[in-house]
């Protein structure tokens, strides 16, 4: 039977064009194209039907996607930008936007410890909102499949990973994730994936008394005596302790079996099997063809430290090898096979969805040697090299090299610590490109901007940064050293929001002014623009859609303005920073609460002056008390324009002799002073 030529040619054309488009988008390998061509040309009915079926199948696959990771998904050419130009927007997928009601399973509206229904479609739907705000990079919460719920709290945040290689269906399919990245790239957003290498969810328990069930037991005989040598130590000298076998206290020797008779050797671990909530052994746990077999890969108990929960964060061994509180089981990342597997599973996500960077959770809970292995591997992979993949059955299997090399893949980590030495150490020796600037969060945003500490603390922090963090960019890294690329933030999902601790919009705005003008990469926690004021987890994880995504709010507009200014003036993004004024004064002094600094790049400079005082207008001068006024690097007579000032307000200053300049800033105000010759129009 022969079909009409006209019809065949029409459909042939459509099929071929569709196949070509799909190939270009990476949905099908390009090598398939000749087959389409041959198949579509066939006039024989069987071959014609086969062609249509093949095309339909591919279209269906492209439309529906699958949850299996494969390679070759690219939406943009290799990354080339300077990460200092970026403004990161941290969003919890479950809280940002609910675009797909079909995946609203086990949603408990309003109970913020439970799923709320947000998903990747919700992010796609509101990219315009983010464009309006002006942020440039989306840091999305983890995408992998999680233990659903634990102790009546849900894994809406994504950090309870159970399966390293499949998407969390609450947020959508792999194809939806790809669509998110693809759409975001089309809107010139970069997308950062949140990953966890330190631990898995609470998927097994320590059978301390070896009775095969997870118990919660009380040990000991009361307080008042010294613990016998063969008995379990008690916190604070007490001879009684409450132990849960899900999450027992740290033991440097590994969690030990124990009964009232004393210790009995290493406590065996026992996996939990509750498929209804994905409380199942970690995946991948078996090579292909060995589904459900245990004792391999992430189900190998030797892949975990098995020392119990961290009880003292000052003890480095506990931090590195203890379980993260909540029973999150610590991976034995010292093992080469664990390192190789973690690198492979996360490299696959780069390949699968074309991410532009990793935000790495619990950085300080993993030893340096791991990062010295992991980060270079990822950089080489992004540079176009295949990566060995021990999670596959074939010992020679690799994560295939990216079809287009991805340069400047950004890796920054969460070292939740105020210790610059510790945080900075992770930026050395080819480890991560950057870290969250937690010391600044504590010393500057909390102490100064929230609680009125002297602005000398800011200068101290800037000076400390210069010596505690790597001043050398990593090979194949982002091209700038950590000292210039620390990720600055006011708050995030793990700490109370700024407005919770300091319920003052002016205070928030002054902090935001510093966030977007200091050196480094600003990271804005979602909802800040909507003036969210939640306290500790989970109340700091509000639903954004309750705001109606308004863009006319005062803070939204203020942030938008700051970002536009940052984008317009290169010194605010890439310039060196030089402190021009800091003060120990926090009272009624002339300069109380004032902090001023210059950002200079390529012969251009911007002067930023911020007043952290809650009570008075202050100046960059102590002349009234016999002191000096601020000296800038601008030449005398330079006319400076405050580009942050609302239109219609005085915004012009002239630099005096020798660069002298007294800038008066209202309480909690900020000025961004740009030489008039450099001023640009800003939308």
């Amino acid at each position, binding site marked *: 039977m022969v079909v009409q030529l006209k019809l065949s040619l029409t459909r042939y054309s459509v099929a071929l064009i569709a196949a070509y488009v799909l190939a270009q988008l990476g949905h099908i390998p390009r090598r398939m194209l000749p087959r389409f061509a041959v198949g579509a040309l066939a006039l024989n009915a069987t071959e014609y039907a086969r062609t249509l079926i093949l095309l339909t199948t591919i279209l269906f696959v492209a439309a529906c996607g699958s949850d299996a990771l494969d390679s070759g998904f690219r939406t943009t050419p290799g990354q080339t930008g300077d990460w200092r130009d970026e403004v990161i927007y941290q969003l919890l997928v479950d809280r940002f936007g609910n675009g797909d009601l079909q995946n609203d399973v086990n949603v408990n509206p309003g109970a913020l410890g439970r799923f709320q229904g947000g998903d990747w479609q919700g992010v796609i739907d509101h990219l315009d909102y983010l464009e309006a705000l002006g942020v440039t990079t989306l840091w999305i919460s983890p995408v992998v499949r999680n233990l659903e719920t634990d102790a009546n709290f849900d894994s809406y945040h994504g950090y309870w990973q159970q399966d390293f290689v499949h998407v969390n269906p609450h947020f959508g399919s792999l194809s939806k994730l790809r669509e998110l990245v693809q759409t975001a790239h089309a809107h010139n957003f970069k997308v950062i994936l949140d990953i966890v290498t330190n631990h898995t969810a609470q998927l097994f328990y320590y059978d301390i008394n070896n009775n095969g069930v997870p118990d919660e037991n009380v040990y000991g005989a009361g307080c008042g005596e010294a613990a016998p040598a063969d008995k379990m130590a008690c916190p604070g000298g007490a001879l009684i302790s409450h132990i849960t076998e899900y999450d027992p206290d740290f033991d440097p020797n590994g969690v030990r079996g124990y009964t009232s008779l004393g210790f009995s050797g290493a406590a065996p671990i026992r996996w939990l099997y509750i498929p209804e909530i994905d409380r199942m052994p970690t995946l991948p746990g078996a090579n292909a063809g060995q589904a459900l077999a*245990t004792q391999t890969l992430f189900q190998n108990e030797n892949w975990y430290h098995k020392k119990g929960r961290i009880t003292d964060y000052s003890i480095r061994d506990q931090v590195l090898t203890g379980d993260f509180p909540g029973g999150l089981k610590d991976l034995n990342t010292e093992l080469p096979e664990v390192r190789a597997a973690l690198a492979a599973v996360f490299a696959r996500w780069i390949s699968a969805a074309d991410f532009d960077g990793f935000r790495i959770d619990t950085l300080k809970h993993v030893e340096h040697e791991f990062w010295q292995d992991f980060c270079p591997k990822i950089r080489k992979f992004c540079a176009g090299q295949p990566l060995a993949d021990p999670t596959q059955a074939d010992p020679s299997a690799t994560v295939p090299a990216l079809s287009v090399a991805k340069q400047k893949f950004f890796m920054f980590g969460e070292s939740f610590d105020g210790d610059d030495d510790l945080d900075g150490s992770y930026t050395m020796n080819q480890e991560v490109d950057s870290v969250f600037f937690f010391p600044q969060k504590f010393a500057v945003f909390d102490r100064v901007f929230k609680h009125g500490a002297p602005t000398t603390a800011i200068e101290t922090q800037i000076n400390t940064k210069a010596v505690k963090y790597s001043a050398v960019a990593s090979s194949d890294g982002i091209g700038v050293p950590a000292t210039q690329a620390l990720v600055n933030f006011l708050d995030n999902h793990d700490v109370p929001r700024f407005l919770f601790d300091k319920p003052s919009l002016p205070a928030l705005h002054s902090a935001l002014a510093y966030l977007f003008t200091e050196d480094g990469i600003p990271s804005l926690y979602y909802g800040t623009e909507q003036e969210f004021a939640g306290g500790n987890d989970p109340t700091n994880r509000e639903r954004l859609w309750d705001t109606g995504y308004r863009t006319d709010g005062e803070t939204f507009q203020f942030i938008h303005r700051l970002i536009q200014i940052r984008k317009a003036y290169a010194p605010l993004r890439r310039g060196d920073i030089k402190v021009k004024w800091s003060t120990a004064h926090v009272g009624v002094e002339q300069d109380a609460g004032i902090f001023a600094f210059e950002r200079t790049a390529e012969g251009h400079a911007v002067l930023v002056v911020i007043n952290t005082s809650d009570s008075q207008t202050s100046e960059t001068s102590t002349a009234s008390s016999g002191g000096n006024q601020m000296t800038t690097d601008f030449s005398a007579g330079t006319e400076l324009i405050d580009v942050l000032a609302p239109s219609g307000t005085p915004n012009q200053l002239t630099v005096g002799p020798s660069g002298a300049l007294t800038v008066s800033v209202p309480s909690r105000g900020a000025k961004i002073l740009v030489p008039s010759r450099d001023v640009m129009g800003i939308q």
Partner: protein
Amino acid sequence: MRFFVTVHTPLALSLSKGRLRLYRPSTSLRSARGARAVGRERLRFFLLLLSLFSLAAAAAEPAPVTDPKTGFDFGSYGRVGVGSDLRGHEGFSTNVVSHGSRLEEAPYLELDFYYTGLIGGDAQKRWRVVLSPAFAGGDLFHYSGSFTSHLALRNAYVETQNLGLAGLRIWAGSRIYRGDDLYLFDYWPLDSLNTVGAGVAYTFRKYEIAIHGGLNRLDDLYQYENLTQPPRGLGPTIQSTVLDRPRFVASLKLSKQFGESPGAKVALYSELHVLPSGDYIRPDNMLKQALPGDLGWVVGAQFGGWLRPSVFANLWLRCAGGLAAYGELTVPTGLDPTRKVSDAREVVLALSGNYESKWVGVMFASYYRRFVDATPGGFNPASYHEGILSVRPQVYFGKYFHSAVELSYQSRRTDGPDYVANRVLVPQIFRFSVLPLVSPLGKGTYSRPIIYAIYTLSVVNGDARIAQYDPSDYRYGQGVAHYLGIGAEWWFNSSYR
């Protein structure tokens, strides 16, 4: 011509003449059991037998059809009874052997539905459908008030008769497939299979060969495992079939009848059980565990003789090994270290008979059974010897009113000490029963239906009570047990063929 297979009556009748000389395996064959060469020799032996039967069949006359009726028909077997222990409790059965007296058994009912048709209008060629739902467990609504029943479909098969070859029967479906029983114990000592499969039986002159093969897959982790797994995406969990290994059971029965009345018969019987290997996942720790393939076998024989239809005796010998020692519907109670049951054994020697005269009938039955569990070790309480001897004389006071007395003794001895008593127990029970009964169809120990009253006195020794009851059980202290009750039993047109 009739089948040798009966269910609720042990009368196995054959009316034609003929002789069969069976090929005897060589000495080396018998001594080298299990060897591959022996297997080939057995196959040749089997093929030779088939050839002999085929040659004989060519000269055979068409077999007369047993039942001339066509269309719908109905039959049934049933028993219903209730009693008291005269101490305020429900009456209970007292047995310590695997197959003891049936007098106080729980109610059971089979409903047999048939539909029979002719093939090509030839009265000699027929087909029929047999459906037998059965209720078991004694869950009578009028007793428990519970509107639930244990319902099973015992028969659901189609059979043809004389199609293609006179004397040939072909069937397929789900079927009770068994031979003669020890009525007093409700026990089929040689061939009793429950199968979903198919079979062929060919009868010529006074020979019969019956071959059958079927599958079963018990709903147990030994043969089947269905695991709940996490949802693929969101939504309900999914089911994963981890283990699915049906057991293949094949049987071969060769029978030969001698004489008419009086007459005799000989039957040789064998079974083969094949269980493929598989893996299951232990639900407690999800570790995958290999289950090796396993085998079972049965060889046995039956010898019967009769002076007339109501006066007969049967002798059975059954030897079973491996899987077959436990029966086809039973999960092995013990495994060897390789998780096989190769060393399990069952030997049964059974005898039954019946005598009828004008005023008296006598049923008697006895068996000895040795069972060896597969678990290694010589002191296994799961291995045992057991035996029972029972006689039931029945006096006819006229055509419809009779009275029977049943006397029996039974005992068991385990190889290993009892878990509670810490010693080997030798439970023993002596029973004495009186059954005045009404028999609407007249005289005969096998005449049914009957309506009866029953009183049973059981002397239960201490070991029997220790073996069966917890000390908190009210029966634990009853060295002498009573049962006073009434009951009824019937069968008509039952699905024994």
